[in-house]
């Protein structure tokens, strides 16, 4: 089933990688954002079903974005894709409702499996 996805990452290269995987699997990438402010704007205006979210962005962290989403009742399922692999960061993200935390560099299968689990769950 095709899902409407927003891709958030400051790296254009990473956004391209993620978008390619998602499109190949038949998902609809409805937008992308390179920083936190743009991400929050697009979460509100595009209302994605799923967000792939980097943790370190130029203006805020992915964790900050999750907090703002929670405070403003912005609902979307979030898969975090980040090079930050600290246990504390993963715990914070999980507490804020992240569905899956994928550590970069990631395999295509990791992302597809996470999406499959989201669809089935």
């Amino acid at each position, binding site marked *: 089933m095709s899902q409407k996805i927003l891709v958030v990452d400051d*790296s*254009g290269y*990473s956004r391209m990688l993620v978008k390619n995987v998602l499109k190949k699997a038949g998902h609809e990438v409805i937008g992308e954002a390179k920083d936190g402010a743009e991400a929050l704007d697009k979460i509100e205006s595009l209302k994605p079903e799923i967000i792939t979210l980097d943790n*370190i962005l130029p203006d805020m962290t992915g964790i900050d974005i999750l907090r703002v989403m929670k405070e403003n009742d912005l609902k979307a399922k979030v898969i975090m894709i*980040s*090079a*930050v692999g*600290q*246990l504390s960061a993963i715990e914070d993200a999980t507490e804020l409702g992240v569905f899956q935390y994928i550590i*970069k560099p990631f395999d295509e299968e990791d992302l597809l499996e996470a999406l499959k689990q989201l669809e089935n769950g």
Partner: protein
Amino acid sequence: MFAKLNDNELEIASKLVFDGLSMAKKSMEQILQSPISIEKVDYSDTVKSVLPRYLQAEAQTVHVIKTQLIGELKGISFLVFSDQEVKKVYEACLPGTIINSSSPESKMMKMGFLTEVDNMMAAAVITEFSNFLGVEMYGNVPSLHVMKGEEVNDFLEKESGDFTSVIHFKAIFHGKELDISPDFIWVFQEEFVNKIKAIVG
């Protein structure tokens, strides 16, 4: 470098550095899809003339990707590629449409690829250090600096200038298939030594 550590503390610090670099090596292998080895790890208490291979390479273009550490442990990392190495990495990892294009988008994608390689390698080291030392630390968004070979050592020294007391280690990675030997340099404040002492003590 670790002059202020006793034998036991030195062993822990060296293992931590090695484990961190091993994680970075693994990340690099995964990104480049090619085997990488850690050729050499050097320790020093100064960043002066840290890269002798560029001292005579005046005209050569060098790509330095810098990541500032934020959080409880202050520091900075530099991943350094020569221009030839960058070309080899692009050829191995990016589609021809991007490599051969001079459009602003392709240029941005190439720069983005290099900074992302650094981002993942630096994060691998930081994760290892953060989990082991029990400190909150992250790498900020990396920045790419392109300069002449003769300028590299001055740049590294200047960028590390904020640190009154530095702990510095440098690894040379080697990709035999790709024939690249990037340098990976880390500079920490003396707090790093204190954290090691606290853990061992």
